[in-house]
């Protein structure tokens, strides 16, 4: 790599020994050192700079280098919390002991992470970031992860004594702990309405509404297991909510998408008909697009599944309709016990405009968490419970009617007992009549 033109303002910069504030000598870290070079900014340079600041990071680097050599991790958990809360801290105690039974890297014997919820949508002023940085230099290692995979700002590396002080300070300027353990967890929403033309809902509002309604369940973990909300403004699902949230809220629309035929023609002109047929028309999952012989586009809106593909490709020509709302899915999670699950549609569409609409969404979340909290086994995610008891029983539990949008297709197995068919038909007919 070429020498940076202004090394002191460069990510590879390591201050001279003279500026070292930590009192412990640095360890040799030949393994980690191999990660200094290369075009991507190096976390090792970062660690080194931190180790120049404090002894905890000196020893942290020692332990990490050791891990690189032995290919083993050396942390164990424990219990650390702040006053009034049960969760939000991930405590770490070293297990790496010397022959004397004492920690090999004593200054990093404790190395806890504090999870703090960022502003919805992860918007910051530089002031705020600098403020976090200075607070964390006071109470911890100085290392901050933007962000954890669940969306927390992770303040990584401090000891038990410093936790409360740190929390008090950030709490005073408006920040609260995130989730850990069997609790409602920190949530994420996409950039959405703030800067994305595809957004069909106010993602931040939904996120805050839901999470802030369950702060007790977040801060005092007493649920069967974790519960995550995630909010995306459209089907592109930029926060991976279907696969990574117990309850996913995704923006969509009910009326016709908007088509600017002039822009369609312009696009065809710039790309060719063949390109448009091969990349748009024949990629629509439900064959809802048809290219007319005059280079205009027909959209079969009844059969469009709002997948976003054509809109993604022709950003100028196509956009979502006006009658917007959200789809709610439940039960996504990673792999433990029963294998990965995705969220299943529970509410195909609901408006989110009036306060009542938002209350209705909150109520769905409340009913779900209540029912799950009462019926789940220990360490059973909502999706696992749905799998175990069946979707229908789950729906009954949360008082939502069964709907054909919840399934890919009706049953293929004839192994079912249907004595009460007529009653179920009546229910459907009553619902239809009520509409």
């Amino acid at each position, binding site marked *: 790599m070429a020498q940076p033109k202004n090394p002191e303002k460069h990510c590879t910069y390591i201050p001279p020994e003279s500026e070292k504030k930590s009192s412990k000598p640095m360890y040799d870290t030949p393994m980690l050192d191999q990660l200094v070079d290369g075009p991507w900014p190096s976390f090792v340079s970062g660690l080194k700079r931190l180790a120049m600041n404090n002894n905890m990071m000196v020893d942290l680097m020692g332990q990490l280098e050791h891990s690189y050599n032995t290919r083993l991790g050396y942390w164990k958990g424990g219990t650390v919390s702040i006053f009034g809360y049960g969760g939000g801290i991930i405590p770490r105690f070293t297990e790496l002991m010397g022959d004397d039974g004492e920690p090999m890297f004593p200054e990093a014997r404790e190395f806890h992470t504090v999870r703090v919820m960022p502003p919805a949508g992860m918007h910051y002023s530089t002031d705020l970031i600098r403020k976090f940085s200075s607070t964390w230099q006071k109470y911890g290692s100085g290392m901050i992860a933007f962000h954890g995979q669940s969306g927390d700002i992770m303040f990584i590396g401090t000891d038990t004594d410093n936790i409360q002080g740190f929390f008090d300070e950030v709490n005073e300027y408006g920040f609260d702990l995130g989730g850990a353990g069997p609790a409602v967890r920190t949530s994420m929403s996409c950039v959405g309405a*703030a800067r994305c033309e595809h957004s069909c809902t106010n993602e931040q509002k939904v996120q805050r509404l839901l999470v802030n309604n369950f702060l007790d369940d977040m801060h005092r973990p007493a649920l069967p297991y974790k519960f995550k909300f995630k909010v995306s403004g459209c089907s592109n699902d930029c926060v991976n909510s279907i696969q990574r949230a117990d309850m996913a809220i995704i923006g969509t629309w009910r009326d016709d998408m908007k088509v600017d035929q002039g822009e369609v023609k312009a696009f065809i002109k710039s790309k060719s008909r063949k390109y448009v047929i091969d990349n748009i028309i024949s990629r629509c999952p439900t064959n809802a697009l048809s290219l007319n012989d005059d280079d205009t586009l027909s959209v079969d809106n009844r059969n469009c599944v709002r997948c976003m593909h054509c809109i993604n490709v022709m950003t100028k020509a196509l956009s979502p309709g006006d009658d917007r709302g959200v789809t709610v899915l439940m039960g996504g999670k990673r792999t433990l016990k029963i294998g990965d699950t995705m969220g299943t549609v529970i509410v195909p569409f609901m408006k989110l405009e009036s306060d009542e609409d938002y209350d209705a969404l909150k109520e769905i979340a409340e009913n779900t968490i209540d029912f799950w909290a009462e019926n789940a086994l220990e360490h059973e995610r909502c999706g696992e419970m749905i799998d175990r008891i069946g979707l229908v029983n789950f729906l009954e539990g949360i008082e939502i009617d069964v709907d054909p949008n919840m399934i890919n297709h009706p049953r293929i197995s004839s192994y079912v007992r249907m004595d009460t068919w007529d009653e179920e038909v009546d229910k459907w007919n009553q619902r239809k009549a009520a509409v």
Partner: protein
Amino acid sequence: MTEKAKPRTPIESGVPDGMQYMHPVYLKNFGNWKYHDRPRPGVLHHVAKSGDEVWTVRVGTHRQLGPYEIDLLCDIVDKYADGFVRFTIRSNMEVSVTDESKVAPLIQAFNDAGYPVGGTGNSITMISHTQGWLHCDIPATDAAGVVKSLMDELHDEFISEQMPNRVHITTSCCQINCGGQGDIAINIQHTKPPKINHDLVANACERPSVVARCPVAAIRPAIVNGKPSLEIDEKKCICCGACFPPCPPMQINDPEHSKLAVWVGGKNSNARSKPMFHKLVAAGIPNNPPRWIEAKDVVMQILHAYKKDARDWERMGDWVERIGWPRFFELTELPFTKFHVDTWRGARHTLNASTHIRF
């Protein structure tokens, strides 16, 4: 670090309102954007219905930032942009300006500081990052090191837009897989059952929970050396490591036998196809710090094949669906084994019950 603060009742303020830290042009046009395009890799240009325009520069970081990097980056944002930053789900920073002429100097400033601008559109964006040896209590590998090694290799693909569609790579440091599904996912796969440290079980482990945690019911309570411990039916055990977090004496991590596996075709978006899980394509890859070159090679083989063969707008999973898995193995030159055939519940649905075959 300061003296111990005395307990104080927390203000349960929850998720802070994002509006207060938002770029003013976002705020003004909230919910009223019209379209966007990408004038160059790493730059998004959004146009609002009001006519307002905003250019957003996306910058790669190494997620774990210290005071030095924070100052370095914030200084640039303050000097060349408007003092606002947002982070993406992939730890990229996004810095917006309303004046097009500021874009080039801003990019220049980031580049001069060693930070890559890119990750937009059909590029390979930042790899999802987990904790690894730095912090987690159960990792079999590192996170930051794997990400750095790969991103060094993928730097050119981050700063350009040459792939058929966006590429989302995830890594995880144990089989739990906090990194999630990915176009390419690099995960741990243990190949030996846990060694039980019987001396510790009685203290460190709530035995009934561990028994319940095992997905294949391979664990049963047992008395070993007169003490309550556990026993594993090694024929049943699938080496998943699920017993390890609740019971650290179930030592699953092994420098030799914890291998890496590469998975392909995970997709979260609903664009075209419904969301898809990733699928196993390679395993038995040594967990080889500090640069994990064997894993990197597999990833590069896959990326090359995808780049060459996929069509515009095809995500990795869409591409393989179209060309078929046999061709995937042919083009990537990865071996196909009996382990690729699923054996978990519902495996029947993964078999080819049709004559849809490519020759």
